[in-house]
């Protein structure tokens, strides 16, 4: 009943191809945006910012980037972590060389470096597909992490071998480094993530999105109807790596504050891949749902025993946590193999026709 679409007539193709052809969707998004931009920052504590809001947003963005490549263009990649690293190191070098640079500009520029590297490692995709391509991107993963470790120029010859985020300000307000307030960091992340999500939605529903999906679904047919496969695959690698790189820069500059090369190792790639798969390949919304589940849920579960007044030692909580989250992942994949996004889509379809069964 809440989702009734009767009476919403469309009289132009423009209206039919609008972002939200159904009014309720637009309303729902409005509520979510209000929540994210106004209500949550007002009520959130330091802990909620650092443990929940900021990481969920950053991981959503990274998964969104991977989803462009794997979900929309159908090119499997296991190198996400390393591409995030490229973005982070590029951003670090930029703010070291030009300390006056606006951090948001530096973050948005750092994506171009990972895009270039992504395209270079995407070249094998012109010949190989599926698992074989995944192995090729795995090479990128190992090579780049090795490079972060060995190329001292990248971390300004620090004795520790790690990159340390300096205090940076925009118009006198510290946005990164130890002196920055969580709420400022949150708003910077939210701004960048909102902007890039908008870009992704537009790209995936337009010409480029169709080119990608055609390449994913049947590459031979795509080529015979006039799609340049090389261009299609490499633009997917470029845009995906750009977004992943920006997510990497955010990850270090606005969340972690410091990072060693092994922070970008394969567990990070897998974490992002899990978010994309559980959220739903080939969707935008799914990445957020997946990130909430994989990043947010463990944090919340950690709080449960305390909130209930049960005293278990923290190691035990950690173990239980891993088991519960693992179990939930399996559960969700059995219930809906196409991810949380598909689950939401089915619920929405049901709501539209409710109270009738079909």
């Amino acid at each position, binding site marked *: 009943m809440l989702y009734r679409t009767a009476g919403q007539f469309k009289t132009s193709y423009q209206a039919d191809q609008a972002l939200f052809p159904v009014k309720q969707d637009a309303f729902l998004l409005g509520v979510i945006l209000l929540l994210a931009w106004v209500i949550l920052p007002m009520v959130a504590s330091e802990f909620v910012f650092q443990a929940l809001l900021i990481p969920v947003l950053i991981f959503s963005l990274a998964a969104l980037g991977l989803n462009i490549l794997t979900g929309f263009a159908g090119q499997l990649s296991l190198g996400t972590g390393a591409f995030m690293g490229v973005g982070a190191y590029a951003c670090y070098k930029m703010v070291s060389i030009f300390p006056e640079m606006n951090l948001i500009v530096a973050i948005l520029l750092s994506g171009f470096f990972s895009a270039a590297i992504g395209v270079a490692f995407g070249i094998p995709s012109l010949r190989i597909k599926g698992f074989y391509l995944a192995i090729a991107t795995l090479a990128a993963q190992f090579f780049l992490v090795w490079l972060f470790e060995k190329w001292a120029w990248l971390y300004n010859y620090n004795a520790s071998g790690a990159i340390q985020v300096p205090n940076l300000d925009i118009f006198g307000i510290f946005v990164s480094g130890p002196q920055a307030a969580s709420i400022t960091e949150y708003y910077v992340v939210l701004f960048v993530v909102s902007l890039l999500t908008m870009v992704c939605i537009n790209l995936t529903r337009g010409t*480029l999105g169709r080119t990608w999906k*055609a390449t994913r679904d049947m590459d031979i047919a795509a*080529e015979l109807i006039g799609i340049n496969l090389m261009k299609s695959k490499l633009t997917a690698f470029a845009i995906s790596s750009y977004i992943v790189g920006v997510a990497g820069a955010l990850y270090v500059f606005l969340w972690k504050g410091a990072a060693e090369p092994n922070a970008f190792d394969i567990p990070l790639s897998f974490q992002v891949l899990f978010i994309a798969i559980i959220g739903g390949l080939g969707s935008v919304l799914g990445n957020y749902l997946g990130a909430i589940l994989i990043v947010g849920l463990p944090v919340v579960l950690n709080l449960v025993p305390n909130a209930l007044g049960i005293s278990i030692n923290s190691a035990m909580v950690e173990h239980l946590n891993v088991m519960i989250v693992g179990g939930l992942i399996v559960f969700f994949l059995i219930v809906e193999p196409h991810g949380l996004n598909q689950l939401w889509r089915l619920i929405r379809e049901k709501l539209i026709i409710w109270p009738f069964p079909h």
Partner: protein
Amino acid sequence: MKDTAGYVTADGRQIGGTLMEMRNITLKFGGVTAISDISFDIHEGEIRAIIGPNGAGKSSMLNIISGFYTPTIGEVWYKGEKRPPMKPFEVARMGVARTFQNIALFEGMTVLDNVMTGRLTHMKSSILSQALWYGKAQQEEMENREIVEKVIDFLEIQRIRKTPVGRLPYGLKKRVELARALAAEPSILLLDEPMAGMNVEEKEDMSRFILDVNDEFGTTICLIEHDMGVVMDLSDRVVVMDYGKKIGDGTPQEVRADQAVIDAYLGVPHE
């Protein structure tokens, strides 16, 4: 080019000059010769059929026309010019569209999106414009949507335009595939067994659509088909192939009377 003059068909339609000409095409895969020394032409506005028993090399011929295979020997002439070796997507951009023997739709996309992919060769907005969904990208989207909707109307698939292709029955998929090819507004439309696996009713529908397309848009059509009744009724001229060689070429009546063609289909008694 030789023989650029048109002709008038039996039912009184005026056919234009030569649009495409295959000259001495030979195609070899290693030691196997799939097509040997075949020449024929396709006139503007006609319905040209290629027939022949299984394994005669018909699909290979269609793949040469659409640029998927490059002939080992021989030339393809298109719109009065010799076509240099090119990639399939480049051939498609020159106005050659096709459907496939085994449906090759994009299963994860809706009917509308599938048909819209047929317009991709006409869309040229920049990535930036697309990213902001502003200016040229949006305008282009609307213009092409209008053309696509005309095709959807024409093929009577309005009802299913928002349905994912994976959920459609076979006959409708074939029609959507035709829609995708038509949306490209091709100069020449290649149909690889458009009636394969259809029942009589669906065949009738498809035949009507093929004739309508030819009649209304003046699209040149080159088709491969096994159903002889359909071929004889639809086509203006027929090429007959057997074991990679051309054994007949002419109007359906001429081909039907040709002894070599009859032998190829019915067999020759061994003495």
